[in-house]
């Protein structure tokens, strides 16, 4: 028996789906804040740390700056991986009931 939109939306599975979607988003968003603002706060309060030499002249700040960009990109990889592996199949299951 196909379910109506109203029945789907009050179902436990749908609530779980929405909850999971935003939990994943918020966790990754918090990571993004930690990465970016962590970097900004290092610049503001720990300049000598970023000025540490890791080569003859190269400073630690350079790889850390690059790491901020790479980590930010990895967050998008993480979300797409989760959505493809978990969210999309769950959506399909709910759609099949309609």
């Amino acid at each position, binding site marked *: 028996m196909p379910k109506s*939109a109203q029945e*789907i939306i009050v179902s436990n599975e749908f609530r779980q789906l929405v909850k999971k*979607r935003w939990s994943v988003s918020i966790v990754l968003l918090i990571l993004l804040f930690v990465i970016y603002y962590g970097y*900004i706060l290092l610049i503001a309060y720990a300049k000598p740390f970023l000025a540490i030499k890791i080569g003859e002249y190269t400073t630690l700040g*350079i790889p850390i700056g690059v790491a901020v960009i790479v980590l*930010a*990109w990895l*967050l998008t990889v993480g979300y797409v991986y989760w959505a493809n592996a978990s969210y999309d199949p769950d959506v399909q299951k709910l759609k099949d009931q309609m």
Partner: protein
Amino acid sequence: MNPAATTSIGTPTGSGVFFFILIVVVTLGITYWAAKRTKTTKEFYAAGRSVSAVQNGFALAGDYMSAASFLGIAGLVSLKGYDGMIYATGWLVGWPALMLLIAEPLRNLGKYTFADVVAFRLRQTPVRIAAAIGGVITVLTYTIAQMVGSGNLIKLLFGIPYEWAEIIVGAVMLAYVLFGGMIATTWVQIIKAVLLLFGVTLLTLLVLGKFNFSPGELYTAIAKQYGQATLEPGVLVSSPLEAISLGLALMFGLLGLPHILMRFYTVPDAKAARTSVLYATGFIGYFYCIIPIVGFGAAALVGRDLITKIDKGGNMAAPLVAEFLGGTPFLGFISAVAFATILAVVAGLTLAGASALSHDIYVSVVKKGSATEKEQVKVAKVATLIFGVFAVLLGIVFKGQNVAFMVGLTFSIACSANFPALFLSIVWKKFTTMGAVWSILVGTFLSLTMIILSPTVWVDVFKNKEAIIGLKNPAIVSMTAAFVVGYVVSILTADTEVEKKYVGQNVRNYLGVGAE
């Protein structure tokens, strides 16, 4: 290393003219092809929703990476060193947030503009008008910044008078949008992104080639010439509050840029929307990772003296090092790439401005959604023409003005006016029409007022001695205010009818059922 003593920047060279004409001819050829496929509004605004995730990834990158981020960041790194790198990271961090919060709901709920999403279950007329105000102001301020910047850059690169540069950019860009709509604009943005990524990669490899492909040797040369401090954070983050406010504007401003948001309607479904951000973030991140090497290379090989002699702001650092490493032909190529960069961004902005005027105001408010398909396409083209001519005129009016604050203004309004209303309409059941309207209006005018009273305008533009508001970037105040106002007004004007419609919205939002 012998710094280059002379340069042919500012004079039209054979290779420069050749690449310039090649890009214009190829893109106009694509426009001709696209024009035959642009008959309906869906094709005009959204490329028939047939753009693949990879294509949209390139096009998003092409829409976002402006001449300011290509020439400006290379210049900033060449003159200020490490501070330029800090600046570059800020331009990337909005992209993951865009994917996590907005991309999929936007694709599932909207049709052509972000106002479609905000107005999904609210009263059309007031919400459309408010969203168009926020959207058009955002697009206009960004267009002014782009047009003034492009006039100056084209004058520097090719020696063409400023006014002519504005008219050429306006005419070519209008040809794309007017005849080829979103299909032509998408392909222009893809070509530009590929050219830009290729050009900067080549430039990076040539720079590193001079230092035995070892970044360490490049940094050694920099430290010996300009001192170790060049490789350390300098003065950019002097006030943490200011840096946090700027960070918020850069991060959430992206989530309120109408020309970026519009691109998500060009892909077939939410999955493609999400994947396209993954590609775009990769391309843009890669670009911001390697562009500092070009800047450092310019400082080491060309020298800061020559860079600042040609342009005080350092904007010619990348073209200069291109000329040093690859001679006039490479300079010609890089200059033409910069020109293509400008065209792609301005075309995207024009399409977004036109869609707000025609789809949100004319079709949804004036015609109450009853316009025929033919009429809608016609109005879209008229709006494009009006917006394009306006862009050229504004570019000329603002000639010689200090418009550096305009980019900051764009991101502040985008994150305060457009983003809070868009986000609340997606996630909050109790959001109401008046909540949306007041959130948008407060976000727009608070950020506008605060920027005018801040040091960037009150002191730098109006030449007053002291600013009335000390904060340069208002985002931390204006974005918070927009959320608070949206919340409080919605609570005061609770509407159960609107709440009921949230069921239909959610089925479409989370499951994609009924999405366009």
